[in-house]
């Protein structure tokens, strides 16, 4: 009498699988626990690490390998649960292909973590060629010859190609081990050696956990013992994730805490689905071990963090004291230098103006040149002193009402000869409006208007400078535009900071202190206004804009 497969299935009274993985065919609930927990934990770890470190090569390979591991675990669960031979045969084939791919993925991961690069293209070609027979013969009877329905087992009959993945797995394991040994011997630094031992150790344990399920199950014909090996997979994946974040400078506390919480959540929720007290004991024992391992790692990490934070705080306080001392010293030196320079300025001015009687023309020229240099020196020292005072908050601002337009006109009149001497055209556009404001006219003139126009002249080799003044919304809008050297995005970040030079500004203006715009910003801000710069980049000019509140 010949029966169909369907008839045999019915006679064996196999349960019909729901969602591929839920059925009474699964002999113990431990199977769900040994598959679904590692699956969820692996995916969570890998996703955490990948999202936090997308550009990291090891994180990418860990993610790819974790996907394969998850596919393998899911397929294995389908084999336990499903009743249809066709489905079992397909998922069995999938596992045969996925298994050596997991080993290869781990090999690439180890290369990425230790060397931060891939194996050579020759090695990749070798691996590719190793996989070719398996890929080519996977759908044939050389891999799975058929399906055995005797004894009401649900088991495919494996052909010779089904044993090939074990060969590949063994080869890749030896490869990983030898690679680790070689790199260990190559490195002389104890830290580097420790890193390699940790990586290779964790990888070997992961591979062992992975193969335990198959090898112990096959050898002892007891598949329940082999299931415990699967529990090791998330632990070692977690360990490898830890190594990725440790050696790739990622925030381990965050990943560790997230992973711990996620794992505990899965463990606790899974108890709800367990019926027998025996299984609950197993789950609680595993939960305890995971909690212990991850908890210790997390507590140590937090402890280290607290120590580091305390150290940083202490260093910060020390730095603040040193900084203050340096500032006071700078202030003192600048004051002293200013005094000497002012005396020299007066002396040279007196000589140049003939206060000591008629002097030879050559001496007069020299005195004028020295006077000009001394004045530049005084300006520089004044800039440093002003910045220091502004930072300390020891500067007081007058609150007199003045006409901003008059101040701009005066500075333009003063700066026009300098611009003309350099061959620059100074275009001024001023609309009629309300330009009276309350504040410190001297500081606005000196540190804002003059500074911006002077900068534009200095940093524009040829071309023109446009000064615009308008009012509106109760504000005075003042801008200085040039077609000079422009500002790069990197320089833009430091533009208004203390001593914030542009990268190449010193080449154009050797006397630049880097304090001008910092002071301008402090002065504008103190008057309730705003200052900013616009530039399309290097060589494309710049525009500085100031907005100040006009008097009501």
């Amino acid at each position, binding site marked *: 009498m010949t*029966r169909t*497969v369907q008839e*045999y299935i019915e*006679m*064996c*009274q196999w349960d019909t699988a729901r969602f591929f993985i839920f059925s009474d065919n699964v002999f113990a609930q431990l199977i769900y626990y040994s598959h679904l927990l590692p699956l969820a934990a692996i995916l969570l770890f890998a996703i955490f690490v990948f999202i936090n470190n997308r550009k990291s090569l090891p994180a990418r390979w860990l993610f790819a390998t974790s996907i394969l591991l998850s596919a393998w675990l899911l397929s294995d669960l389908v084999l336990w649960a499903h009743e249809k*031979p*066709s*489905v079992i*045969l*397909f998922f069995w*084939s*999938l596992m045969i*292909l996925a298994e050596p*791919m997991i080993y290869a993925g781990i090999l690439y991961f180890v290369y990425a973590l230790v060397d931060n690069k*891939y*194996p*050579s*293209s020759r090695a*990749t*070609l070798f691996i*590719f060629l190793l*996989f*070719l027979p398996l*890929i*080519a013969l*996977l*759908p044939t*009877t050389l891999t*799975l*010859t*058929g*399906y*055995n*329905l*005797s*004894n*009401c087992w649900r088991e495919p*009959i494996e052909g010779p190609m089904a044993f090939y993945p074990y060969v590949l797995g063994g080869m890749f394991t030896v490869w990983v081990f030898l690679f680790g040994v070689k790199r260990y011997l190559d490195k002389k630094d104890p830290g580097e050696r420790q890193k390699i031992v940790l990586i290779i150790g964790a990888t070997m344990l992961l591979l062992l956990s992975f193969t335990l399920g198959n090898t112990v199950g096959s050898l002892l014909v007891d598949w329940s013992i082999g299931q415990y090996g699967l529990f090791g997979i998330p632990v070692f994946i977690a360990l490898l994730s830890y190594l990725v974040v440790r050696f790739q400078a990622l925030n381990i506390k965050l990943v560790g805490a997230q992973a711990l919480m996620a794992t505990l959540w899965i463990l606790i929720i899974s108890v709800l689905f367990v019926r027998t007290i025996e299984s609950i004991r197993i789950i609680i024992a595993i939960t305890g071990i995971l909690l212990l391992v991850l908890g210790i790692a997390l507590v140590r990490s937090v402890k280290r963090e607290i120590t580091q934070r305390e150290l940083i705080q202490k260093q910060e306080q020390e730095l603040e004291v040193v900084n203050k001392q340096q500032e006071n010293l700078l202030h003192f030196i600048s004051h002293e230098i200013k005094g000497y320079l002012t005396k020299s300025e007066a002396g040279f001015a007196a000589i140049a103006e003939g206060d000591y009687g008629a002097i030879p023309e050559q001496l007069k020229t020299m005195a004028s040149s020295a006077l000009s240099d001394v004045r530049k020196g005084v300006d520089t020292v004044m800039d440093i002193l002003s910045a220091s005072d502004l930072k300390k908050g020891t500067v007081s601002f007058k609150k007199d009402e003045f006409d901003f337009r008059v101040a701009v006109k005066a500075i333009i009149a003063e700066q026009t000869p300098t611009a003309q001497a350099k061959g620059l055209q100074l275009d001024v556009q001023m609309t009629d409006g309300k330009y009276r404001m309350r504040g410190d006219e001297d500081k606005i003139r000196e540190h804002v208007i003059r500074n911006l126009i002077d900068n534009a002249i200095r940093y524009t080799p040829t071309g023109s400078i446009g000064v615009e003044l308008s009012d509106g919304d109760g504000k005075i809008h003042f801008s200085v535009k040039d077609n000079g050297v422009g500002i790069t995005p990197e320089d833009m970040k430091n533009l208004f900071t203390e001593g914030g030079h542009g990268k190449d500004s010193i080449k154009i203006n050797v006397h630049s202190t880097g304090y001008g715009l910092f002071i301008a910003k402090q002065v504008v801000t103190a008057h309730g206004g705003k200052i900013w710069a616009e530039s399309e980049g290097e060589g494309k000019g710049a525009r500085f804009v100031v907005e100040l509140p006009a008097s009501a």
Partner: protein
Amino acid sequence: MDRRSRILLEVFLCLAVISLSLTFYRYIILNDFNFYVDEEAFQEALLEE
């Protein structure tokens, strides 16, 4: 990763997907597989059940 390795990996992935698709087609769509039953062992198993 150099260009050669990248191409190799891409080709590998394509071939793996094709191979799996053929396996899926053979087993799931066509239901094409041999099955073996030792009738004696099968009957014994049924009696044990």
